[in-house]
């Protein structure tokens, strides 16, 4: 399988199964409409009004060579790969819902303004410690483990965070593990003291902000309606500087109300943030702010615009990172990880303040997806297995898709929310993801032009 595309005056072709990426000229791009099905003479006849026979033959020879080398039209040989077939799911990451409460109200919040459709509650240190035990016990021989402090707003239960971290540090030594703690916060409660602690103890920190003041404040506001932008920007900037612009992300959400979201990413970069991320809102169609199919062309244009500016800024020495564009063609994750899916419900689990286990943070509050409880170490094997098997080869749409090794089958929660089936990816999400991948590859091609 191949995928060819054209963006920003650049023609590219990806050999899906080998992972090879080629920049091609317009002639080779046109020849690929007929190659390898048609014979050379037929292709020459079909393209004779545009190119000479010699040129076409030349391009065909090059395509023949790459095909022979396994860099075009290569087969997918991973399904039966030992590393994939024998992969046993182990738990290696937890999302701890340290506070089912929030100090701000976001219009689009999937967590029902922090309480996940339940009572407002805080996780106790006891539950948190049990979660660490559960993680270590179920992690088999994995050394690197992850614990994200999530909410609601985790800073509303910061003393418990510290207790859990202290406990984790003790336990990781005993069991020869390396726990990487991370936190996702809206930033409102950041102060010098907790920033220092976060900086010293968190491997990564995700700071929520949607971009321009009017965009952020339209969606993210305090209980009495005041926008959060002015409160958080100085704090987030300070946090980013403390971390020397590494191991953090400012992360926003864009909706139908700011389809010109490239401006928001660039605004964050202009503020001085070097690590940015901007996610499309996940919302059912009846919400006014939900992204609809008819918005896709606008979204594509925005990603293209952002990609162009991204390259320009790198070339000017003013580059920044945008999460979805950071594809390292040579040092990325192995194909076994890429086919396995996001890991939710298998190697990644979410724990509520009460100790209930869900496949991931997005499923919390939906009783049908309660997998078990860390309080009695119980796991529903049927749900756990259903999620463990939700890899790309078990998803019809994915097996036929060129992007499968880049997105790993997409978000299960999106699939469930839109199609009631974790094995059937959410189409609008897929289309946006494909565009982001094309942009990321175009960026690589543009940067390679300079070399």
């Amino acid at each position, binding site marked *: 399988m191949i995928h060819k595309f054209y963006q920003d005056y650049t023609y590219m072709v990806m*050999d899906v*199964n*080998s*992972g*090879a*990426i*080629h*920049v*091609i*000229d317009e002639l*080779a791009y046109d020849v690929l409409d007929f190659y390898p099905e048609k014979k050379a003479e037929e292709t020459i006849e079909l393209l004779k009004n545009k190119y000479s026979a010699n040129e076409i033959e*030349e*391009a065909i020879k*090059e395509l023949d060579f*790459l095909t022979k080398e396994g*860099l075009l039209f*290569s087969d997918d040989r991973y399904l039966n*790969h030992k*590393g994939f077939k024998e*992969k046993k799911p182990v738990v*290696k*990451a937890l*999302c701890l819902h340290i506070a089912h409460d929030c100090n701000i109200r976001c219009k689009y919040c999937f967590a029902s303004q922090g309480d996940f459709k339940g009572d407002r509650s805080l996780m106790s240190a006891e539950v948190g410690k049990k979660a660490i035990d559960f993680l270590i016990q179920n992690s088999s021989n*994995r050394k*690197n483990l992850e614990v994200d402090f999530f909410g609601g707003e985790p800073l509303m239960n910061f003393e418990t965070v510290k207790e859990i971290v202290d406990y984790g540090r003790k336990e990781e030594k005993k069991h020869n593990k390396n726990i990487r703690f*991370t936190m*996702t916060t809206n930033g409102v409660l950041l102060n010098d003291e907790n920033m220092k602690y976060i900086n010293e103890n968190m491997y*990564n920190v995700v700071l929520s902000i949607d971009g321009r003041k009017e965009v952020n404040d339209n969606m993210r506001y305090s209980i009495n309606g005041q926008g959060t932008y002015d409160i958080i920007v100085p704090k987030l900037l300070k946090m980013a500087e403390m971390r020397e612009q590494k191991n953090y*992300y400012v992360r926003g959400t864009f909706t139908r109300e700011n389809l010109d979201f490239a401006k928001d990413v660039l605004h964050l970069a202009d503020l001085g943030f070097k690590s940015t*991320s901007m*996610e499309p809102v*996940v919302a059912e169609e009846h919400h006014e702010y939900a992204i609809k199919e008819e918005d896709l062309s606008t979204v594509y244009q925005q990603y293209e615009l952002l990609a162009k500016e991204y390259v320009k800024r790198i070339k000017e020495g003013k580059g920044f990172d945008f*999460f979805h*564009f950071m*594809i*390292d*063609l040579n*040092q*990325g*994750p*192995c*194909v076994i*990880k*890429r086919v396995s899916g*996001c*890991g*939710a419900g298998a*190697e990644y689990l979410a724990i509520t303040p009460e100790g209930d286990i869900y496949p*991931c*943070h*997005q499923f919390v509050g939906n009783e049908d997806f309660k997998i078990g409880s860390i309080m009695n170490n119980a796991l529903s094997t049927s749900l756990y297995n259903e999620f463990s098997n939700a890899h790309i080869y078990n998803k019809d749409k994915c097996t036929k898709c060129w992007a499968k090794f880049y*997105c*790993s*089958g*997409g*978000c299960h929660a999106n699939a469930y929310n839109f199609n009631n089936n974790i094995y059937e990816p959410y189409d609008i999400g897929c289309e946006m993801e494909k565009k982001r*991948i094309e942009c*990321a590859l175009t960026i690589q*091609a543009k940067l*390679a032009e300079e070399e």
Partner: protein
Amino acid sequence: MKHIKTLSGATLVKSAIKGGCGECQTSCQSACKTSCTVANQECENK
């Protein structure tokens, strides 16, 4: 080659050789928490 410039070779095939140790970061933990780009994660077993 005149018409084709290869940006990267058979990286997925090569990655399968040493692949599957599982030590890398869970993608959702890094920054997205919704959409799933996995290809931008780092390998822990370089």
